[in-house]
């Protein structure tokens, strides 16, 4: 039984449907059959009653005059008819006297003259009781259905006297052919109904079950971590199943977004950790480094050193300076006081890069809607724009164009750079803003790291997209009076 319930809906729905259709068809067919059986029975009873009333009229004088032969002829007459309808033809007709003895019967061998009714069989015994219960002259016509036969009893009475009872016996065997034909007809109708309904049921079941099965598979995929929607158009209707598909799509989208967000959070946390680490390292390095440089300076100033020592000191000094430069490049000092960003700053940046751009035959188009100073530190924003544009120029192919758009609206400054040329490979995307990650051999890989640090410290966001031959960096920075204050993390 369980195996049946465990079946796929693809089979279960049509199967249950078929079962219901078959049950319903059977129920209707059997109702028809039972109904026709009852109709048949009541037809027999009413036709017998009418026959009985007719016979009684002629039987009364025959019985009154003890005319056995005449009475015999009367009860025999309806049975002689070679009638087409066997149904109306009784099996036997009995004329009973007042004492319920057979006065005459159409089949004297089965019911001989003078036989007592109740001795003729169980059915007759019951019938005799029924007749005895209504001995009056105007007794109603009785009918009684035994297991094999139907009995209709008509009082033989006229002008206030009752001579006995006429009993018309019908065998139920004659019902059988009629009954069989009705049953066969019902069965045929049932088969036609099944032939029409079963394919419809099968089609309907498939239409419901197949999308359900797909949904079940997709849900399984989601549970295993593969956030895939069922193929679009799997179920294009607006019923509950359709709503389920829609909700499932929404859920998958939400899960995808959540996953992206989680990845983003992990990445920013990693970048923040790297930031803190590098800032800490820079301080730790800068303090002894400063001391070392001062000591070297003092050493040089004292004089009296030979050539060789001076050379060595100079070499040490250059090395320490390189360390200092690198460390200070990593250490973004956002806390530096600076003036507000002015429209001229962007033009300066364009100017500063023109040399590099020219070298690579790259055009830089800067578009800006800033007309008044914006409450953002000019130095930092200049550095951000500079880094982004420099990267863009370097990534751009020869004779390409780098576009930069700066817009100030709704207390936000949006900076967008766009260039063609080499796209950023996907494996690099996740580590793009980490230090010492570089797209070319020439750079040291700190440009985007610094940019990211600045944007983070200004509480802004930076995103990158690289597709269809276009790489776009978008920076959004909040502006306003108190909009920027160095984050504790960055100043640490």
């Amino acid at each position, binding site marked *: 039984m369980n195996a049946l319930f465990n079946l796929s809906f693809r089979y279960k729905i049509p199967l249950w449907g078929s079962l219901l259709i078959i049950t319903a068809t059977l129920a209707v067919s059997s109702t028809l059959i039972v109904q026709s059986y009852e109709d048949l029975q009541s037809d027999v009873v009413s036709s017998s009653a009418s026959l009985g009333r007719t016979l009684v009229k002629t039987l009364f004088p025959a019985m009154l005059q*003890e*005319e*056995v*032969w005449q009475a*015999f002829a009367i009860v025999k007459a309806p049975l002689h008819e070679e009638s087409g309808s066997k149904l109306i033809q009784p099996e036997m007709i009995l004329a009973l006297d007042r004492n319920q003895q057979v006065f*005459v019967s159409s*089949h*004297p*061998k089965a019911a*001989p*003259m*003078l036989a007592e009714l109740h001795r003729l069989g169980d059915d007759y015994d019951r019938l005799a009781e029924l007749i005895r219960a209504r001995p009056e002259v105007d007794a109603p016509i009785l009918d009684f259905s035994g297991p094999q036969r139907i009995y209709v009893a008509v009082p033989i009475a006229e002008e206030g006297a009752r001579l006995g009872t006429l009993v018309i016996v019908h065998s139920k065997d004659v019902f059988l052919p009629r009954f069989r034909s009705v049953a066969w007809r019902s069965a045929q109708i049932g088969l036609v109904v099944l032939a029409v309904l079963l394919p419809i049921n099968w089609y309907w079941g498939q239409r419901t079950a197949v999308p359900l099965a797909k949904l079940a598979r997709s849900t399984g995929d989601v549970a295993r971590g593969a956030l895939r929607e069922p193929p679009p158009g799997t179920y294009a209707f607006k019923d509950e199943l359709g709503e389920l598909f829609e909700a499932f799509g929404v859920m998958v989208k939400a899960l995808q977004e959540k996953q992206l967000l989680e990845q983003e959070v992990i990445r920013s946390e990693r970048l923040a950790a790297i930031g803190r680490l590098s800032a800490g390292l820079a301080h730790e390095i800068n303090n002894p480094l400063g001391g070392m440089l001062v000591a070297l300076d003092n050493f040089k100033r004292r004089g009296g050193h030979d050539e060789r020592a001076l050379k060595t000191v100079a070499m040490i000094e250059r090395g320490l300076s390189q360390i200092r430069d690198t460390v200070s490049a990593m250490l973004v000092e956002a806390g530096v006081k600076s003036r507000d960003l002015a429209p001229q700053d962007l033009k300066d940046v364009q100017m500063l890069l023109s040399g590099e751009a020219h070298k690579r035959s790259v055009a830089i188009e800067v578009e800006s809607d800033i007309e008044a100073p914006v409450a953002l530190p000019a130095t930092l924003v200049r550095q951000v724009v500079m880094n982004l544009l420099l990267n863009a120029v370097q990534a751009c192919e020869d004779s390409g164009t780098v576009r930069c758009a700066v817009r100030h609206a709704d207390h936000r400054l949006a900076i967008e750079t766009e260039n063609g040329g080499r796209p950023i490979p996907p494996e690099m995307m996740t580590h793009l803003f980490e230090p010492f990650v570089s797209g070319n051999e020439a750079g040291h890989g700190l440009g985007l790291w610094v940019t990211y640090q600045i944007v983070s410290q200004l509480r802004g966001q930076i995103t990158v997209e690289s597709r269809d031959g276009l790489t776009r960096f978008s920076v959004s920075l909040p502006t306003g009076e108190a909009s920027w204050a160095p984050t504790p993390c960055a100043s640490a």
Partner: protein
Amino acid sequence: MKELIRALLLLALLALVSGTSLGAETANGPLRVGLTPTFPHDQYQPLEQWRLYMERKLGRRVEFVRRDRYIETMDLLRLKKLDFAWVCDYPYVYFKKQVKLVAVPIHKGRPYYRSYLIVPATDTTTTSLAQLKGKVFAYTDPYSNTGYLTPRYELQQMGENPAYFFRKSFFAWSHRRVLEAVANGLADGGAVSSHVWDTLSIGKPELIAATRVVAKSQEYGFAPFVAQMSVSDEDFHAMQRLLLDMTTDADGRALLKDLNLDGFMIGNTQLFERVERVMRAVGEK
């Protein structure tokens, strides 16, 4: 009002009866011949041929009047509503003084017949009338010799009272119906004329096959053809001649074959002495 209607109806009935019976009283009207169930008188076609044969031979109209009950035919004869009739030997003897014997049929070469005691073919045990005590018995007619008088006579000979011997008895009003009643099992036994039995064993073998003859009585003079007393000699002799001469032409022989008879002969009262004795013994006269 009711009385008036009844009186009117009675008058109309009388007029009708006298109208139809007019023929028998008028010399040039049709000859009226009564037929009884002493032979299978309900076969319409052969009898119609016989009637036409009579009309041809006699040169005048002949009407057949069929009555189931012997007494009714006898009454019609005595009332002169019939000129001739074919009746049973018993009513002939009974009303001997009111009718004239015209001819006696010859069956199997002799003017005699018997009474057969029959039971259903399914009854294979009964061998005598005595075994039917307490059973249902079918008689033919209270004025039938072979179908009533003979079995009652035999019962009397056995020392039984015919009135109580059977549990129930009834009249079927013809030999043929007695056969049917016994064949159907309506009656456990019955008495019929040997001539009817023989005739039906040709015409209705399945009916005869459903019965079995248990006993055959002594011979009696065959049911005779009689005339009412006042029939003219001319008519009497014409009819007698017609019957006697039936064997002489092909049509007559064909009719006799249908009637299962060899012919007719001029009978005499000695033929019927035996039935008269039986009648007296039973105490009917």
